[in-house]
């Protein structure tokens, strides 16, 4: 039980625990957790504070925390499960029962023995509840098929499971009485196993269960064929080699030259070893060389079909459709808020924020201008690489909006070279800054919502060695003093941009505990697994163009703290590219469009 609780504690207190004592703590927790729940009241009185302290190695922040920790020290296990699926005769004899949760025999037998007494006659419903369990059953001729579940179990799901099981029982058992069940008990148990896994229902049909239980495997047949052909092949090789040996013997007899001999025998050896692998593999079970062959076969069988991983974060279809519903949901949320519920509308996960897919567009036309920064700064100052790559992409939701041209405006930065897509009218762009297709009758391709990137119209690139172009410079000073290394880092942001979600990751030497952060502008987080200290600043603007952090670690070489990598994003661009207007080629009003600009780091390091 405590491993599960342990995960929580490990998560909450990973920074405060020393690794070697972890085991002891958990053991202690394991032994005492039951007491803890039993003595919630007592815990809140003096001495037990100490006890909890021991458990957590951390001073307790507040009384509130004790409450939560006590709440946690309750078995954390998924709670909606089927305990057992059984068949009982009407006279009360247990014919078979398969348990899906750890239970003692006496408990199972007790539950099943109580069942016939609880079943009333003449009722029109088929479940019985006792103090602790619920039986959901179905009479089948002279038998009862029943599921034993806990009382919180989802009745709708259980009934569906029961229906499926009853179909299986009639399918597998030729006569629905004690004898029939007795003869097919094992087949039924195998079938039950396919329907319920660790107490959870599987989504299967009768046909699928039958297929699973028959165990006819195409791959196994294939495997056997391959094996057979290998054996045959080897036999052929053996024959050939034998005849070669014969030949060489004759040759040897003819001419007394030794060089031939050694070469020939070498070949024979290799062919024999091949042979031995194949034949032992066919014997299953005991062959030592078995692993080699199966992996071979795996490779063989995976290649042709290959699993296609699909994009996990593709935005959903049909936005217009959901509009009404979401409005209703909003109403609902509003009313909940009014009643004092705390609703967080923005469901961004805390970790891995930068990886979240861009919110899918809702305007009919969306233009996205993006710039990616690849920057390598030297630790002693100076730039070793500075490269900005930009793209402008267009996304059109509906076919009818496809016939348009895009009027843009660039900031006139001379260092930037623009390149249009080959299908673009180059002259139009260079003369009037209008992006349009070469063939004015062709519409722009319309991308469904799934294709987040849209169609690329324009690319640009900027390289520079000018240090003033760097948006954020980092200065890191490790200095050893006595038994400790003091590291002070400062950043300096140029006034060009307001940077968002800045994360500066400093590698650390392997540490036993979190570094001691003396001073910081912003927040820090220590990732013990990767040994990285993350310094995050939500927003750098005119109020905090420079900032610093200082921390102390045990003595270490200064090179350990490099390369420092930096992530951030901004909404203005180097190119200052702006979409001024959309010109519909067929006349009419200017269609609605939205534009997004995003500057982000791809690889930004201090080495």
């Amino acid at each position: 039980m405590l491993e599960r609780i342990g995960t929580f504690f490990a998560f909450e207190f990973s920074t405060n625990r020393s690794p070697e004592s972890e085991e002891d703590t958990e053991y202690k927790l394991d032994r005492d957790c039951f007491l803890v729940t039993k003595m919630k009241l007592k815990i809140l009185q003096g001495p037990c504070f100490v006890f909890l302290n021991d458990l957590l190695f951390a001073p307790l922040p507040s009384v509130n925390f004790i409450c939560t920790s006590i709440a946690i020290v309750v078995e954390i296990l998924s709670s909606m499960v089927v305990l057992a699926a059984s068949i009982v005769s009407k006279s009360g004899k247990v014919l078979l029962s398969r348990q899906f949760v750890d239970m003692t025999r006496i408990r199972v037998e007790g539950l099943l023995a109580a069942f016939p007494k609880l079943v009333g006659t003449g009722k029109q419903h088929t479940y019985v509840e006792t103090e602790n369990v619920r039986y959901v059953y179905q009479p089948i001729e002279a038998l009862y098929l029943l599921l034993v579940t806990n009382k919180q179990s989802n009745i709708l799901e259980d009934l569906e499971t029961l229906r499926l099981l009853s179909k299986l029982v009639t399918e597998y058992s030729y006569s629905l009485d004690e004898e029939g069940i007795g003869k097919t008990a094992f087949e039924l148990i195998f079938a039950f196993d396919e329907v319920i896994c660790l107490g959870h229902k599987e989504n299967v049909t009768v046909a699928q269960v039958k297929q699973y239980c028959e165990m006819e495997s195409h791959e196994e047949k294939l495997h056997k064929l391959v094996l057979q052909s290998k054996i045959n092949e080897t036999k052929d090789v053996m024959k050939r080699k034998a005849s070669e040996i014969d030949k060489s013997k004759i040759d040897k007899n003819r001419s007394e030259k030794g060089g031939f001999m050694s070469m020939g025998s070498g070949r024979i050896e290799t062919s024999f070893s091949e042979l031995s692998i194949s034949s032992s593999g066919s014997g299953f079970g005991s062959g030592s060389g078995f692993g080699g062959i199966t992996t071979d076969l795996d490779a063989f069988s995976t290649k042709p079909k290959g699993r296609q991983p699909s994009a996990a974060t593709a935005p959903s279809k049909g936005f217009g459709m959901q509009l009404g519903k979401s409005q209703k949901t909003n109403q609902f949320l509003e009313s909940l808020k009014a009643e004092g519920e705390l609703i967080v509308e923005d469901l961004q996960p805390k970790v891995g924020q930068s990886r979240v897919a861009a919110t899918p567009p809702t305007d009919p036309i969306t233009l996205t201008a993006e710039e990616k920064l690849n920057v390598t700064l030297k630790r002693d100052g100076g730039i070793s690489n500075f490269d900005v790559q930009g793209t402008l992409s267009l996304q059109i939701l509906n076919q009818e909006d496809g016939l348009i041209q895009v009027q843009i405006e660039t900031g006139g930065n001379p260092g930037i070279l623009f390149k249009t897509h080959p299908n673009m009218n180059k002259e139009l762009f260079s003369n009037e800054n209008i992006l349009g297709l070469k063939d004015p009758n062709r519409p722009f391709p319309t991308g469904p919502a799934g294709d987040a990137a849209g169609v690329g119209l324009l690319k640009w690139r900027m390289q520079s060695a000018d240090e003033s172009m760097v948006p954020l410079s980092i200065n890191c000073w490790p200095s050893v003093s006595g038994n400790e290394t003091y590291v002070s880092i400062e950043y300096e942001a140029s006034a060009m941009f307001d940077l968002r979600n800045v994360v500066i990751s400093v590698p650390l030497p392997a540490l036993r505990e979190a570094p001691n952060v003396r001073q910081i502008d912003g927040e820090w987080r220590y990732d013990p697994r990767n040994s990285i200290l993350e310094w995050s600043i939500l927003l750098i603007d005119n109020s905090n163009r420079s900032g610093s952090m200082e921390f102390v670690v045990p003595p270490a070489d200064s090179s350990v703290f490099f390369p420092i990598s930096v992530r951030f994003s901004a909404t203005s661009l180097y190119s200052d590219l702006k979409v001024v207007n959309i010109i519909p080629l067929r006349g009419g009003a200017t269609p609605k469009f939205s534009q997004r600009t995003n500057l982000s780091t791809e690889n930004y390091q201090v080495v």
Partner: protein
Amino acid sequence: MEKSCTLLIHFDKGTPAIANEIKEALEGNDIPAKIDAMKKAVMLLLNGETLPQLFITIVRYVLPSEDHTVQKLLLLYLEIIEKTDLKGRILPEMILICQNLRNNLQHPNEYIRGVTLRFLCRLNETEIIEPLVPSVLQNLEHRHPFIRRNAILAVMSIYKLPQGEQLLVDAPEMIEKVLSTEQDPSAKRNAFLMLFNCAHDRAINYLLTHVDRVSEWGELLQMVVLELIRKVCRTNRGEKGKYIKIIISLLNAPSTAVIYECAGTLVSLSSAPTAIRAAANTYCQLLLSQSDNNVKLIVLDRLNELKSSHRDIMVDLIMDVLRALSSPNLDIQRKTLDIVLELVTPRNINEVVLLLKKEVMKSQSGELEKNGEYRQILIQAIHSCAIKFPEVASTVVHLMMDFLGDSNVASAIDVIVFVREIIETNPKLRVSIITRLLDTFYQIRAAWVCSCALWIIGEYCLSPSEVESGIATIKQCLGELPFYSVSEEAEATDASKKTPQSNSITISSRRPAILADDLFSSLAIFFLAAVVTCTLTKLVLRLEEVQPSKVEVNKATTQALLIFVSMLQLGQSPVLPHPIDNDSCDRIVLCIRLLCNTGDEIRKIWLQSCRQSFVKMLSEKQLQETEELKAKAQVSHAQPDDLIDFYHLKSRKGMSQLELEDEVQDDLKRATGEFVKDADDANKLNRILQLTGFSDPVYAEAYVTVHHYDIVLDITVINRTRETLQNLCLELATMGDLKLVERPQNYTLAPESSKQIKANIKVSSTETGVIFGNIVYETSNVLERTVVVLNDIHIDIMDYISPAVCTDTAFRTMWAEFEWENKVAVNTVIKNEKEFLDHIIKSTNMKCLTAPSALDGECGFLAANLYAKSVFGEDALVNVSIEKQADGKLSGYIRIRSKTQGIALSLGDKITLKQKGGS
């Protein structure tokens, strides 16, 4: 920790399979024979045999088999064999199966791989699992979803083992990766489940990154999502705001199971009215859309819970709940009405009653056999509505009175009781009710209803016209006078055959209803006659008061006297199969005397005291109800070990019920029997039984723990000699409905050492059981086995029964039905009736159904009904009837009735043993 049991198969002991036969078949090459032998081996193992010699045979001959069924059976065999020694260390030979398992995990047949992975989920031995881990992980990326599904579960189970985190350090990361690319819904669910159980921050992260797509996920995955949300919100209450949106989006899911779960989750997370309303609406929808009675009943249970916690919200939904009445199932209808009745408010009462009235009408037209019963509960429902809100009584009472002549006697009785109560509590309605009652009086069929109606007429006819029409109606219904004449008697003696006919005519002329009702014997006819007499007497006495004309009064008096006399005459005539009983006869005679000789004292008794005592009864009933309500309200106070809510630290608004959530947690534990109440240590010592004497070579004592379905004996055995006792065996035998679960084992006991032995005994019904036993052992110098006989252990019935409540009617039906009766004569030193009753209640642990007010006072006799239920659902009924004798001693009988002999006998023994009292 006791071993868990994964499998039970009924095994017919009639055909014992011999280990040798099995061995031979396993060694052979015949596949069907091998399969058969494996099955037998598994069954023998389940039946308690250990078959240690078979293991090597199986390793040698079964492991290499290529047949799939053999391999699957082999896995079952491995699942149930003992894999560790007594100290919990793994048996060395188990290593032999590892290679086979690894081969299976790399088997070309995907199903073999799958079932092997599933087998690993049930395996707890790290030593066996450790070498298999790489193969398990390989399967995570297999092409076939069947394998991936099971591989993920196997990873989860392994990770959850005590040292699982060391075996699979990066399992959560791996599974997270799998989850991001997985397409198969089942595998996806399993992966999410794994994260949920093992690294729930990752699961949350996944959920939040894919929050827009939750509604498109498979049903199975959505269920786990809901569970995760519940769990997260329980541990970290501040975060629930994030998740309510997800729940709301899932409320529109296509799967009803998910919707049901959503509603439950919503209720447990929030107590905001909107959330509760949404949940309640969802339940109501399910209630209507689902045709399955089980679902309806359970959904009604949920609504009932909501009703007690959020009554104000449920009040608005009352009409939706009421729509469930359309189901033809009586249980559902009853449950629905129960919920609705507690939700009626002055605002909705009219609507509710209107619908109930419609339902009553509907129940009349249908042909369903249950309609009568349904009508009865509807009438009861309307009754209680009318009591709560007297203003509706006027709208329903006339409709209800149409059912006075209902062929369903029970509902007719309910109606008349209802009318009786309304006419007292609603004085405004008196006139109209009386008129109506007199009009419909002739329709009444049942004697009981009739006597009740007569009582109402007698009490509530106040004005002269009412009194007169009352007398007239009764007279009219009685038929022509005289009922019986001497001439008829003469004829009767002439032709005996004709007599019963003429007789029946006379009686039927008296009251046609009575013949139809064969439930009541002729005895009841005269009881009715007595009631008629009393009513007429009352009416005449009242007439005297209100009628100024003496002539009219005298006329009525004489007519009444004539009727009385005719009745007596009929009653004493020889033509009736049963002559009039003395009691009724006495009453009629009394009435005659009374009318001949009236007085103020008598008038006061007849005209006022009856009414007063009725009013008193009504008020007492009300008092009892309010008291019950009060008692109910008090029950829900916090227990000492309840979670403490620091509500000063957070807003009360919108807080949900933590208690409810903790219940979910305990639920599974309780269901698997893991939940053990820790007993008081002092009590524990009291329950130790000494089994042998102090001077016996072996001393034994037992501590008996009685659980619901089993008894555990913790027996301490101490070797008191200076010799080593070999093959020491504790043999137990049982009497009654007890069964030993395991076979006894042999132990060796060093000099002066002790041993703890545990024995499990299964109980399947409530009965006093006895456990006998011996301890048998050998010593090195004496060849013979020595036997020490143990004291008997008696299992007390009191551990199995608990006080329960049932209605009086249910008690009577059961009393009539149950065939086992045990009659115990009272024999006690207790002098006071009430004290004796209390003593019996205390010593039998039963609930007294008779109201305390009925037991009040010193009248020298007492009768009470006691009721209890056993954990197996059996009913135990007891009736105590005692009388105080002249010498001050109590005498009488205690009758015990039950469906099974066991309860009647053991409870009887218990009472005989305890009733003496005094000590």
